[in-house]
Structure formats: C-alpha cells, structure tokens
C-alpha cells in the first residue's frame, strides 16, 4: 500500500502513483504510446474520457488523502485549462499539498 502524502514523498514517487492510478482506471493498453511523463496530456496524449478523469481524481484522493483538494483545484480552472491538463499539473498539485 502506497503511503499517504508525507513530506518525504518525492515527485518521482508521486508520478509513479499517478501512472499506477491511470492504469488501474483505463487498463494497461493506455501505455501503448509510451510511459507516462510529466508532460503527458490526459486528453491529447492519453485520450482519457472525462468520466475516467473523475475516477482518477477519486482514486488519487483516496491514496493521498484530504490534504489534496482536487475539487477546489478544478473549480478554479476554465474548461480549456481542464482539457489541456498534464500529468505534471496533477503531480505538482499533489506535491504542493505535502505537509
């Protein structure tokens, strides 16, 4: 079991956890175009469906706990910003919530 969000958790570990969550939601075949990196876009590169992104946010919420405010984060973004989100944006959000 991956630990909750701790000060020691590195960005690489967060990236790995995000990748694992993406695979858990969308299946292994999501990685056919290559590994997930910080610049991978959820929409243009991975082609996640919007409902899959909802499930991803929920999974990461469970993993990293209530310190990460996905909902507040989403509400502060315009639709085109949401469509353009990258894995790095999500890793950064989680990283900035480290205690």
């Amino acid at each position, binding site marked *: 079991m991956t630990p909750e969000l701790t000060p020691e958790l590195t960005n690489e570990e967060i990236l790995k956890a995000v990748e694992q969550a993406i695979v858990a939601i969308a299946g292994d075949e999501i990685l056919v175009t290559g590994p997930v990196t910080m610049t991978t876009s959820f929409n243009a590169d991975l082609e996640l469906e919007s*409902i899959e992104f909802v499930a991803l946010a929920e999974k990461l919420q469970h993993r990293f706990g209530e310190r990460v405010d996905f909902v507040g984060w989403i509400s502060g973004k315009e639709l085109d910003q949401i469509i353009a989100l990258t894995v790095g944006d999500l890793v950064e959000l989680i990283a900035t919530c480290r205690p």
Partner: protein
Amino acid sequence: MSTVVANGVAHHVQNLGPVVDRGAPPVVMTHGLVIGSLASWFFTAAPALAQSRHVRMYDLRGHGRSARMPSGYDTHTLAADLDELTRDLPPFDLVGHSWGALVALRFAHLHPESVRRLVIVEAPLPPASAIEMTAFLNAGPEAIIDALPESLRTAVASGRRQAQRLVESVVYLVRDTTLLADIRAEPEPACVGLPPTLALYGDSSTCRPGGEAFARRCGATLDILPGGHYLHLDARAELTARIQDYLDG
C-alpha cells in the same frame, strides 16, 4: 470507485463537498442521455456548489461507469433509480440537464416532500422532441461526432481512443437498448406538486420554445442564457452562478 446498487443496477456515484448535515441543503445533479455522464456536472457547476453544500452526482444506468442496461431509460424507471440513490438524504435541491431534467421533474412530481428546489436545464419538452436531437444517432460514427458540442468534438477529432469509446457507447445505447423507444413513448411532465422551479435554456437552443411554454404552463421561473443545448459547456460560469443564486436565495 463508489458503486451503489439501486433498482438492481450498479450505479457510479460521486459525492463532493461537506457531509450531508453540514452547510446548505444537499444538491443532487442528473445528466443528459447518450453523451452525458456525471462528468457533465463534475467539471462545470458541481465544484462551485460543493464549496457550501453536499453534492451528489451519479451516472445514469447505461452511461459513464454505471452498469449497461438494455431497458429503463423512461423517466419513471430513472426516477425510481434516483429515489433509491437518495433515500439517505434530507430534503434536497435537484438539478438536471436535458433528459436528466425530465427525470428530476418526474421525481419531484412523485416525491414532493423530498425536493426543496428544482432547476431544470435544457429539458426537452415535449419529451419526444429529444428524438430530434438524437436523429443523428442512426447516421453513423462520423455524423455522431459532427453533432457533438464543439468542445467535445475538438477533443474527439484529435485522436482514436476517445472517439472509439464514445461511438461504441452510443452504438450500444441506440442499437441494443430501448433508449430511443423510451424517448418516443415519454409523456409530458405534470405541473402538479412541483417545488419552486427554475428553468434555464440556451438562447440558440432548439429546446427553448418548448421550455418557455412549459415555464408558462407550470409557473416556473424562466431564464435564458447565451448558448445552445450543452449550456453547462457553452455558459459554464453563468449557468453555475444562476444555479447557485437560485438555490441560495
């Protein structure tokens, strides 16, 4: 994933915001048929509403991450699903888009004691007029993509995975379920027992005249916002503000 079995169907449910008994009355949000899912609200009005109240959204049967079902897309069955998914809530506000708005109307008519305020967004009235919006569904994958709202079309046009999954889901609903027959057979909603109701329509939507007639007939507050049928995408900020004002006022 949060799965709740209601009416024998596994539903994907998402709850946002404070726990039920904290803050303003809870709000339940329903989405439209075929290309809708709870994501319609999750990325638009729900996060703002969740700042002050408990928000519950779910994927209708056959949609999003809920179980596929061959039948039961009429508002009577869908309102029964909604009933089972909200039994633990005190009286709540109900917000629906498109067919989800008709489900909300039906639910409010059947359970007036459960609904405090109702917001219907782009409800197709009469209900069978929704067939006009789904006419493209029999025309093949390219026509389906052409008929999508622009933001979704851009996302789909760029690649393969989203387009394939969307088309596959649409083809399932149209060919292998009673969805179109259920739309055709749907009766007009009743005005009786409706709570205070706000009807929101897009100024360029084909649903607007039917909505205006409904608002007159049932005494609902009518508001027209700039945009088409997918008002949550076309006028995301205005729609969110209008819903929030109505529920808070």
